[in-house]
């Protein structure tokens, strides 16, 4: 399997330019085990019938002790481990995963990347993430197919028009490049759109030109490969069953593959954060809900930007394979089953049919659900916890993929130094202190 991943990573897209090769070699050069991916490597392997490709990451037995244990090998967990090693030289790290790598929400999202948020703390961490996506393929020597094709958030009520103009002004002050565009420009960018929908006309849009999409699996695989190359252990099919502490300080975890001691513990498990927090002895302001997505049969290229329609509640982009990738809102009730209710899909598709009449006869190929961890203010938690040495990164809710590199960057800083300006506002005690980051209310975003 990993052979195919390797080849796809080398062949796909044009991100592995000459510029990327020396930069990536510099970062991964300390480890002789990891072979560099390049056009030259493809040619070399072609000459020997592709017998020389190696596994992208090792699959080691757990050691007795690590300086840092990260629970959860999704994008956020792997990114945290990667930046712990890259930025702080902490490389005695294990990333523990109960399922398979990137098999949770990292592999289930609609891959949208944007940073057009209203509040300063959100804009800071999401823009950090977006800017890291720009060079991720070169940094990781792994093609994550970042495609800054532009993200458009439609305004379909007067309220939304005011909200998005406000966001555009806020973004200007934050240094995030977005702009308010009129319906004519919307139509120019998305010719298949119906501006005069029967329920809600398109009155304009908030446009982020450098937003876009990336290959979600490749983000997890790329980080995993880079972590493994630094000597970190990625341990899959290993479920944490308990958190051990001594005098208010974490000392290790119990797992289905035996106890593992650690100096610091990072909990990065999205939907199951509550279960891990319970093991660690604290409660979270988080509830787990199902969020669904679906893709259509592949069709010829028809839309080369991401469109989000938040009033009618649906968002859509076209994948490189031609499928229309569609997402909507969460189900209303607590749910750990990774499947949701049909009427939410119906609601999303109905809205998108109004907005894009040409998709009405498309067949849908696949539908799936993920468990998202929703906080009281719909913003994430990156924080120290009541248990010493134990840190938590959760609550990304319906919008975590776009934040992966920024989240990992900030979380690594928090875990290594005890403080990060990126994560400061997202602490666990903000609920008690009333410092909400009211994105879902103030910005009128999809989530």
């Amino acid at each position, binding site marked *: 399997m990993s052979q195919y991943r390797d080849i796809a990573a080398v062949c796909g897209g044009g991100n592995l330019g000459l510029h990327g090769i020396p930069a990536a070699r510099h970062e991964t050069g300390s480890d002789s085990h990891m072979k560099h991916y390049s056009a030259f490597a493809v040619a070399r392997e072609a000459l020997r019938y592709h017998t020389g490709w190696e596994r992208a990451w090792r699959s080691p037995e757990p050691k007795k002790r690590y300086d840092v244990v990260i629970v959860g090998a999704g994008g956020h967990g792997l990114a945290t481990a990667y930046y712990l090693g890259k930025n702080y030289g902490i490389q005695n790290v294990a990333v523990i995963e109960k399922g398979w790598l990137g098999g949770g929400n990292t592999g289930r999202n609609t891959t949208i990347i944007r940073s057009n948020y209203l509040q300063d703390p959100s804009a800071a961490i999401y823009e950090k993430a977006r800017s890291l996506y720009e060079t991720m393929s070169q940094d990781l020597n792994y093609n994550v197919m970042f495609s800054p094709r532009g993200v458009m958030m439609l305004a379909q009520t007067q309220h939304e028009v005011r909200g998005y103009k406000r966001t555009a002004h806020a973004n200007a002050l934050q240094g995030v490049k977005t702009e308010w565009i009129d319906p004519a420009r919307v139509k120019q960018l998305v010719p298949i759109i119906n501006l005069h929908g029967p329920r809600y006309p398109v009155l304009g849009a908030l446009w982020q030109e450098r937003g876009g999409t990336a290959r979600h699996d490749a983000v997890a695989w790329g980080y995993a490969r880079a972590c493994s190359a630094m000597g970190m252990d990625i341990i899959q099919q290993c479920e944490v069953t308990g958190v051990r502490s001594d005098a208010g300080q974490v000392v290790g975890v119990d797992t289905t593959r035996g106890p593992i001691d650690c100096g610091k513990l990072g909990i990065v498990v999205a939907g*199951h954060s*509550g*279960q891990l927090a319970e093991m660690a002895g604290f*409660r*979270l*302001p*988080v*509830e*787990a809900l199902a969020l669904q997505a679906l893709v259509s049969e592949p069709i010829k290229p028809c839309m080369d930007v991401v469109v989000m329609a938040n009033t009618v509640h649906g968002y859509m982009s076209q994948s490189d394979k031609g499928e229309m990738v569609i997402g909507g809102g969460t189900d*209303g*009730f*607590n*749910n*750990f*089953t990774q499947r949701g*209710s*049909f*009427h939410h899909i119906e609601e999303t598709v109905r809205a998108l049919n109004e907005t894009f009449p040409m998709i009405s006869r498309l067949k849908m190929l696949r539908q799936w659900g993920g468990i998202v961890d929703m906080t*009281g203010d719909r913003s994430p938690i990156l924080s120290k916890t009541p248990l010493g040495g134990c840190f938590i990164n959760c609550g990304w809710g319906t919008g975590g993929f776009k934040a992966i590199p920024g989240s990992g960057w900030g979380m690594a800083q928090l875990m290594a130094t005890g403080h990060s300006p990126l994560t400061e506002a997202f602490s666990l005690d903000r*609920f*008690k202190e009333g410092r909400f980051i009211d994105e879902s209310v103030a910005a009128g975003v999809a989530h």
Partner: protein
Amino acid sequence: MLILHCPYCGVDADETELAAGGEAHLKRFGPGSSDDELHGYLFARENPKGVHLERWRHASGCGKWFHAARCTATLEVFGTYKAQVSGPPQEIRDAISARRPGWSWREFS
């Protein structure tokens, strides 16, 4: 699709008729309570992977609030009961015990 029996009008209501109301049997804390108590009431949630007691409203039906006992790991419904109680009645507890022996949820078991 989730189907819940409304204990007031007797209808087996589809999810589309219902509005989810979150965790049930919260103890209210208001003015004069500590920061921790207010935080616990407003934000901290059990969020169990398993038996969950929750509030629902028959929004597009009779309009009444009621309670449901449900499993978040399997979507199994153990039963529904009226709103004017501070905990699940005995028959609901028995129905849960029949399916999940030894269950407990907050102070209930």
